[in-house]
């Protein structure tokens, strides 16, 4: 009986050990590229958080929820940073977080995957498909990818800013997340 309990416990432990749950935020990056008057401008978010449980050998079974602190945005200039926190852009006072829940993940083959689920920004939620690749490193794994965010669909940039001739509708969101085992 004791042996059986011990064996069960060990099994649970090994199953758990395979799952990576800790997003190492210091190593990870969430950035974006917007196009202003035809010019690519880089930006990033300094603060984000995630609840992840993923076996890098079987990412299809992963569970993941990401949360980005919009006010931690870096758009390249102080002037732009304070502007995008305002009502016409992200309205961070009312909507401080953007979230993405990976509710379905499917393999595309060759180490490529596709997560889909609701992306919520500024009170608007839309099903979004996020392709990514997995690359094991040490005791963890890198999850890297990018997707196009149509900013006007989330009302990011209203009024005069909804003019996509000045700031293009397509914003490329790039992420590079390192997930390790719980410390």
């Amino acid at each position: 009986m004791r042996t059986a309990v011990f064996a069960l416990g060990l099994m649970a432990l090994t199953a758990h050990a395979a799952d990576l749950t800790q997003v190492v935020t210091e190593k990870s990056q969430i950035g974006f590229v917007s196009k202003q008057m035809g010019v690519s401008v880089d930006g990033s978010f300094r603060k984000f958080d995630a609840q992840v449980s993923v076996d890098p050998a079987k990412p299809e079974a992963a569970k993941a929820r990401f949360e980005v602190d919009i006010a931690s945005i870096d758009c390249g200039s102080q002037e732009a940073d304070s502007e995008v926190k305002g009502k016409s852009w992200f309205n961070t006072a009312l909507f401080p977080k953007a979230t993405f829940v990976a509710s379905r993940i499917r393999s595309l083959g060759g180490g490529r995957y596709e997560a889909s689920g609701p992306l919520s920004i500024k009170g608007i939620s839309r099903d979004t498909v996020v392709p990514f690749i997995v690359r094991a490193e040490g005791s963890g794994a890198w999850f890297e990818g990018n997707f196009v965010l149509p900013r006007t669909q989330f009302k990011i940039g209203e009024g005069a800013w909804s003019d996509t001739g000045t700031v293009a509708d397509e914003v490329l969101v790039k992420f590079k997340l390192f997930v390790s085992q719980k410390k």
Partner: protein
Amino acid sequence: MTERYNPVTILLHWAVALLIFAAFPIGLYMADLELSPTKLQLFSYHKWLGVTVCFLAAVRLGWRAGHPPPPPIAGMPRWQEVSSVAIHHLLYLFMLIVPITGWLMSSAKGYQTVWFGIIPLPDLVHKNKELGELLEGVHETVAYVLALLIVIHVAAAIKHQFIDKDGLMLRMSLRPEGKTRS
């Protein structure tokens, strides 16, 4: 009849004059604007104009090497001859320096310069906040120096036209015939 500048030289001179007269006030105005789509547009137009000025200034220097300017008009005092050459050289220098500092400043601030939104200019410096602010000051200062040089240049031309009445301005006129008759 005094010898005129080459027609290509004349055309380039006035084209660059027009571009600078557009770029300078846009630059002054946009700098203090609050962030808006208009501001982004003006910054782009200003940068496109500046790059064009720089490009045409280089073309002018090349053209000038093969087509030297006409000799100074007869009877001009030596100091005027010397200072006119000096001002012209400085004008060329600053027509290059002002756009180049603007281009570097843009790169340092993390905004690449893409000529007419089509032709990307390489970022010669990396994004660096302190360098960006330093170059902003440099760009502003050299732009004012260029403006001052232009004021001197225009004042001298006006003096030749209306005080000396020596017909010097005809050498750079786009329509010399029409003016000589009046």
